[in-house]
């Protein structure tokens, strides 16, 4: 028994990344020596695969489907702007800052859509669906400012802020159904119960995105990471401050003003930001930004 204990101890010391392989080696040996039963070995092997409990356990593909439904609800409330050149330009800037984020690869890729409304707002659904309103674009003065706005949305997705707004009870309900089911597809009654939990989760995210807004701490965190991602991509993170300063002088009315902390509070939280080295390509960025915004 001491040998088995020694092997298991070694496995435990071997580090998290290798825990799985080491644990299986140890339990395999202990079982072959008759030191533990088959069921005990299985139990030990399964113990590191804990049952799913909360939003952190939502899978990549589940995040994608929740994000699609949230995006579908946003697009039910706001009309998409049918301007191919403008949307394509935003897509280039989005992929550039997402590529410099800590989540460049996402299940279905990163996508952006301009919304045809004068409301000043930007939103992102889980799974990499980013929205920017025409009203906000009319207040942006450079590609660097646009990159910072999009990087703020990338940060919300990257840090899974949307998923964290889903009430635990919805996930408990869904995970309980999933935890018992092993078949490839679901029976109608299971689909019905899963869809109910899914719809509740989507409502939770939409409610925070459109109505209540994320917590102040999540917004400040998104600003901090936006500055980091923008700088890593080669943009000046101070452009986030110049954009917020412009908003500060506007009368607050709905949209972003309702769902975010005040521009003054965000500016105070951001503090001093280091610009990227050099000033290469700014003339080309100014030209293409002006060209892309001409249609607004």
């Amino acid at each position: 028994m001491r040998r088995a204990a020694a092997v298991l101890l070694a496995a435990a010391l071997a580090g998290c990344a290798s825990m799985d392989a080491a644990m299986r080696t140890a339990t395999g040996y202990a079982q072959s020596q008759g030191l533990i039963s088959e069921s005990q070995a299985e139990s030990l092997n399964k113990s590191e695969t804990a049952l799913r409990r909360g939003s952190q356990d939502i899978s990549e593909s589940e995040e994608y489907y929740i994000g699609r439904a949230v995006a579908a609800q946003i697009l039910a409330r706001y009309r998409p702007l049918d301007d191919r050149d403008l949307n394509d330009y935003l897509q280039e800037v989005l992929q550039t800052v997402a590529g410099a984020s800590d989540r460049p690869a996402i299940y279905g890729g990163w996508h952006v859509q301009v919304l045809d409304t004068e409301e000043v707002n930007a939103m992102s659904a889980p799974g990499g669906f980013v929205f920017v309103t025409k009203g906000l674009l009319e207040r942006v003065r450079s590609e660097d400012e646009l990159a910072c706005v999009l990087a703020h949305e990338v940060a919300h997705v990257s840090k899974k802020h949307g998923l964290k707004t889903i009430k635990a009870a919805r996930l408990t309900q869904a995970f309980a159904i999933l935890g018992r089911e092993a078949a490839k597809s679901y029976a109608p009654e299971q689909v019905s119960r899963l869809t109910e939990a899914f719809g509740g989760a989507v409502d939770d995210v939409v409610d925070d995105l459109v109505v209540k807004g994320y917590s102040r701490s999540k917004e400040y965190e998104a600003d901090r990471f936006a500055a980091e991602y923008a700088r890593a991509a080669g943009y000046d993170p101070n452009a986030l401050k110049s954009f917020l300063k412009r908003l500060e002088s506007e009368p607050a009315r709905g949209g972003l003003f309702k769902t975010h902390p005040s521009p003054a509070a965000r500016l105070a939280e951001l503090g001093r930001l280091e610009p990227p080295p050099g000033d290469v390509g700014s003339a080309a960025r100014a030209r293409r930004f002006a060209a892309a915004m001409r249609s607004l």
Partner: protein
Amino acid sequence: MRKTKAAVLLLLAAALGASAAVAATITVLVRETRIRRRPQFYAPAVATARLGEKFDAEGPENGWYKTARGYIHESAVTAKRVRVDSAGSVGGGASAEELTLAGKGFNAQVESAYAAGHPNADYRAVDAMARRTVSDAELLRFAREGGLAAGRGEDR
């Protein structure tokens, strides 16, 4: 003798663990991702890896796993052990990663049921949005022209 055997086993398990920390089997968890020549997001792609593909890899180092074919970003993969049987089924207590590979959990079947009950949800507009993408070559041109990080250095 017994002490020696236990010590050998102890060392063996520790050695297995130590080597596994740098050499792991990684599984792709996104629909597709590029395998790159260098550990940089805009380095030339040498191949495309798809959902469920497995690779022996070292790392991650600065966010990148090194495989025999090239580099894959850690956000595209899991290094956890994942088990999905040939019929695509996973057992009770499946991990999030296993559900993604099996296409289970909140999936297309659930989306269809949700869409049927929410006719206002504009999935057509979502599909149009999801088709919008920029190729690697176009993104590199965009970065070079704008003097951005991805367009600098040796990413050719």
